[in-house]
């Protein structure tokens, strides 16, 4: 029973393509996140949604568009992929958006060639 699951785990794609990463949590949490781990290994927040409402958008290029069809799902769509988008993308969730422990998925390794 994976609490936060994301697919695909590995993705290799060409520059200019559009791709999506899906995420689902079965913890009953209200808040979901996308974090990015770059080549320097820093984990940085990209977006967070609380009950399907966007609450954090951290100066991410608008080629990145999160979509939350319900509070258990937060998908990440990336348009016109660039080489610099290569990173590991982690989905996560927490009970609420204020002062709670965040639980992460296993990550999606995106390589743009």
């Amino acid at each position, binding site marked *: 029973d994976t609490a936060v699951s994301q697919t695909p785990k590995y993705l290799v794609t060409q520059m200019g393509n559009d791709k999506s990463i899906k995420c689902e949590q079965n913890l009953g949490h209200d808040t979901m996140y996308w974090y990015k781990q770059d080549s320097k290994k820093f984990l940085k927040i990209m977006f967070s949604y609380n009950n399907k409402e966007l609450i954090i958008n951290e100066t991410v290029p608008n080629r990145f568009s999160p979509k939350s069809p319900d509070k258990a799902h937060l998908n990440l769509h990336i348009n016109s992929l660039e080489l610099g988008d290569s990173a590991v993308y982690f989905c996560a969730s927490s009970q609420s958006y*204020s002062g709670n422990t965040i639980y992460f998925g296993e990550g999606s390794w995106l390589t743009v060639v």
Partner: protein
Amino acid sequence: DQQVKQNSPSLSVQEGRISILNCDYTNSMFDYFLWYKKYPAEGPTFLISISSIKDKNEDGRFTVFLNKSAKHLSLHIVPSQPGDSAVYFCAASAKSNTGKLIFGQGTTLQVKP
């Protein structure tokens, strides 16, 4: 502007001894601190947390200490085991900032048998 810093990129400890991982922060608004453990090709796993109203929290072999005046926290692992070998991330959040986690750059712990 790195608000959470882990100045030791790596640490090597003998099995059975104590491991001490350190973390410094600059933002006095942070009121919740967490440690995550990460194995290769997996997502960060929550380990232990501490609220700013406490100075110590213990969970089995893991203890986190918080020194607010010094803006410093540390994770103690006693006794260290080879399975503890992983990357450890310190993270901080502020309720006033919608609870988003700010991560340090991680410390790689190697526990030698």
